[in-house]
Every structure is written in C-alpha cells, then in structure tokens.
C-alpha cells in the first residue's frame, strides 16, 4: 500500500492501463490513453486561466493596496468562473471587412499553440505527455506558432490598432526568441540532452545556480514572449486600445485570454523545468509522488515573480524593448554559452566546473550591469535628466 502511494501517479496510470487491457484490445488501449493524456494536457491552459486570473488580481490588488475580487465565493475564488460565464454569453461580433476565415482561425491556432507546449513538460518522474528527445527545441518551435496566430488576428481584423499591435508582437517575439534559444542551448549543453526529462534528471544542482545569466535571460525573454508587463506594449491600452485582439469578443476573445494565461503558466513551468530543477526536491527520489507537488510549488513561485514584476514595473517603449534584447541579452547569453562550452571541456572535477561557471556568470552580470549603468548616465546627461544639474 505504501509502495503504491509512494509513486502514486505512475501506479495509478499503470492500474488504469491494466484495467483497460482487461476488456479492450491493445491498439484501442493506446488510443484511449493518448486521448486521456491529451485531454488532461489540453485542459492545462484552461485551468491556468481559471486559477491564475484570480491569483493575479489578488496579487496585483495587494501590490496596489487594494483587496482585489472578494464578492463571489470565499476570497472571491469563483470570480474567474463568473467572468468565464459572462464571456460565454457575450455576442460574437465580426467586423465588416474582416477576412472571415482567417479571423476565425486565429483564436483556435493561438490556443492550440498554448496547449501543445504542455506535451513535453515533465510533472514528475515518468509523468510527461511525450518524452521527446528534442523536447527543448520543440518548446521553442511550438512557441513560434503563436507568432503566426497573432499576425493572422492582427491582419484579419482590418483594424489599424490590431495591425500595429501585431507588428509589435512580432518584433518582440522575434527579438526575444534569440536570447531565449541561446540560454536554452546552454542548458542543453550542460545536461548533454535535449529531452526535458533528461534535463531535469541532469540537474543535481539547479541550473539557475550555475548559470544565473541564462536563467535571467530566459525569464526576461519568457515574460516578453507572453507579453506581460513591462513588455506589454503589444496591448498597451493607452496607445493601441488592446492590440491585436481588439476586434474579438465573446469566446473568441476568451481563447486569446486562455492562451495568454496558459502561456504564462507554461513559461513558468518551462523555467522551472530547465533552471529550477523541475520536480526535484527533498525526498523526490524516494517518494516520486512528491514530484508534481514540488513542480507546482516552484511554478507558482515563478508565476508570482512575474506578477510581482507586472505590478511594480512601468511599461517599456518599443525601442527600449528591442534595444534591451539585442544589446544586452544577446551578448550576455552568447558570452554565457561560450563560457559554458569552454568550461565543460576543461579536465577538472565537476565541482570546480560548477564554481567556474558561476564565477563567469557573475562576471557577465557585473559587466552588463556596469555598462547599463553607464548608458543610463549618458542618457540622463544627454537629456538633462540629472537631478543635480537640473536643480541649478
């Protein structure tokens, strides 16, 4: 009994398969299992939307010294469900001059992209939709489907704000994909594999401690990828109303919303998997059933960090946003990648390698911060923003 609970989820899966086997032929069991896993994983963005919207409103509310939703259910936890029902009964409007098929396809595509990400995310040992040996690249490739969906939405809406929003999204996604891939490449290099399961197994020390540069770069690039503040100029309400989905209403808007929160949750889960040790934690090897718990806790912590940043940071301008990607993140992650590649070939014990990696990373952070500080000073002088000089 204790053994069963120790590895509860995997054993549950085995029992389920055995039960199906007792009355179904082999191919049918495979199909049923794939369907069940697929449906569970596709539900992830929806679950993320229902829970994280409530969490976000509570967290941001506290940051802004408000209470947040508190009317529907205890602490307002059913607020998200009320909003979802409201969204379902709203009228569906398609603007005149919209490219109808493309307009209708875009929300489906964007939600599909958000759901597909979950296929390779490991929730615990042996708990992954598909342990692809190219899992890490798969994550990036699937993320790029979002770009296409956004362009389709922006263009098909026949609305200038939507189009400008789509342009901004694409510029942002393309620029931040580069540091993202470079930081992921460093992870694949240390782990020696691109399978997400393998990456987690390889993390005797969370990679965030070995390569803070890669972690920070991934974190920043990830929050840019999901378009959250301070990178939310894609939907800056004061400039372009709501960006690429301004013309959508009802459930079609809902799909964009689900994709946004699904991606937020997925990006946090990927950051956890690649840099924070995934499902590893105390006793996770003896009691694998603890894995999903650690995984969810770490993911929620990353989500909280993203919300915290959203609640405190002002929005970037587009030139600042692009400049930060190309002039800061790309050189820093490139330097990290080169450094890690060199260190991994050094004939020294693993512990020394780890210390050298961390040392090099801290140096990269120091150099980047110094140069950023100098640039800020120069900017302030050029624009007469220095408090000392303007006071005179």
């Amino acid at each position: 009994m204790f053994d069963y609970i120790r590895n509860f989820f995997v054993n549950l899966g085995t029992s389920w398969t055995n039960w199906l086997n007792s009355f179904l032929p082999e191919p049918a069991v495979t199909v049923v299992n794939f369907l069940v896993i697929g449906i569970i994983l596709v539900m992830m963005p929806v679950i993320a939307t229902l829970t994280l919207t409530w969490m976000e409103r509570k967290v941001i509310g506290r940051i802004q010294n408000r209470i947040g939703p508190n009317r529907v259910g205890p602490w307002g936890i059913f607020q998200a469900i009320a909003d979802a029902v409201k969204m379902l009964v709203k009228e569906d409007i398609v603007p005149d001059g919209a490219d109808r098929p493309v307009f209708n396809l875009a929300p489906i595509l964007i939600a599909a992209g958000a759901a597909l990400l979950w296929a390779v995310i490991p929730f615990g040992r042996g708990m992954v939709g598909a342990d692809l040996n190219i899992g890490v690249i798969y994550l990036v490739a699937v993320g790029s489907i979002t770009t296409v969906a956004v362009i389709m939405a922006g263009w098909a809406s026949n609305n200038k704000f939507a189009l400008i929003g789509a342009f901004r999204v694409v510029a942002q996604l393309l620029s931040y994909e580069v540091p993202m891939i470079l930081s992921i490449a460093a992870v694949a290099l240390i782990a020696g594999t691109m399978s997400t399961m393998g990456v987690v197994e390889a993390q005797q020390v969370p990679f965030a401690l070995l390569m803070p540069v890669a972690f920070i770069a991934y974190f920043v690039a990830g929050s840019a990828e999901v378009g959250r503040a301070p990178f939310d100029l894609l939907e800056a309400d004061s400039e372009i109303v709501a960006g690429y989905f301004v013309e959508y209403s009802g459930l079609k808007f809902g799909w964009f919303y689900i994709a946004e929160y699904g991606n937020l949750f997925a990006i946090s889960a990927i950051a956890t998997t690649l840099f924070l040790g995934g499902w590893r934690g105390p006793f996770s090897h003896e009691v694998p059933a603890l894995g999903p718990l650690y995984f969810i806790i770490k993911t929620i912590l990353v989500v909280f960090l993203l919300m915290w940043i959203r609640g405190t940071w002002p929005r970037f301008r587009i030139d600042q946003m692009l400049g930060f990607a190309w002039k800061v993140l790309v050189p820093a992650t490139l330097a990290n990648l080169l450094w890690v590649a060199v260190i991994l070939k050094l004939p020294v014990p693993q512990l020394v390698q780890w210390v050298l990696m961390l040392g090099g990373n801290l140096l990269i952070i120091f150099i980047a911060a110094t140069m950023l500080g100098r640039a800020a000073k120069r900017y302030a002088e050029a624009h007469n923003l220095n408090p000392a000089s303007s006071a005179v």
Partner: protein
Amino acid sequence: MQQLMFIVISAVTLISAALVVTTRSLFRSALWLILTFFGIAGLFILLHAEFLAIAQILIYVGAISTLIIFAIMLSRGVMDPNARRFNDQWGLVAGFAAVFFVLLTAIMTRVPWQTTMAPAPMAAEAIQLLGRELVTPYAIPFEVASVLLVVAMIGAIIVARERES
C-alpha cells in the same frame, strides 16, 4: 496506416502549395505557405527525422514566414486585391522556373535513391550524430554557410543603416 498518413499529409502539402500561387490575396498565400511548411514537417516526422521536422517549424514557420508576411504588409500596394497579378517579367520568370523544374527532375531521376528500409539510428543518437557530422566531415560547408549568413547580415545592416549627414 503509415501509407494513409503519407497520402493525407502529401495531399495537404500539395494542395496548399498550389493555393500559394493561385490565391488572389498575397497575405492568404503566405498563410497557405505556412500550411505547406507544416505538411513538410509532417513528412519529416513520417521519415523519423524529428529534429528536421522541428527545425522546419522553428525556422520556416516561426521566422521565414513571419518575415515574408512582414515584407508583404510593409510593401505599398501589394495588399490591393485589384492589383495586376502579372508584371512584364512574367515570361522570363516562367522560363527560369521551367528550367529549374527540369533541372530538379533530372537530378531526382538520376540519383540512386536508397529505397529499401535501412535500420535508422535511434532519434536520440540521430541528433548527436548530426551534431558530430556537422563539425567533423561537414565542417567546411557548415562554416561556409555561417560566413554566407554573416555576409548577408552585414549587407542588410549597411543597406538599412541611416545615413549620417
């Protein structure tokens, strides 16, 4: 089963490829092109080349199609549905396309393709094999491709740079 999948995926690829060149709206042709790329990625998966399939999606769908759509949206006049479909150079282009087609067919019919099923390397090994091959026997082509890309990038920067007056 595999045969059926192959037929379906190739049909999707071919039909969408045909629609790329026949659709009136340039933006929609770009979308059909994306579907074609997905079809090709599907064919790669059928051939057990998962890495190529993902690279296909990452590079062609994620980057190249996006740039194509950008170019379409930023060019003046091409979005007009009443614009002429052909300009004066269509004969020349058709000639070159025909020559290229003949060339490709000639190559394809002459290469001794391996038609029997060889034991393909396991996918995990396949990636490592690919990586090793790229930096050992194929290091020169690999480096030449990188130099080409750098040259293209420098060229683009020079073309796009603002003139300092």
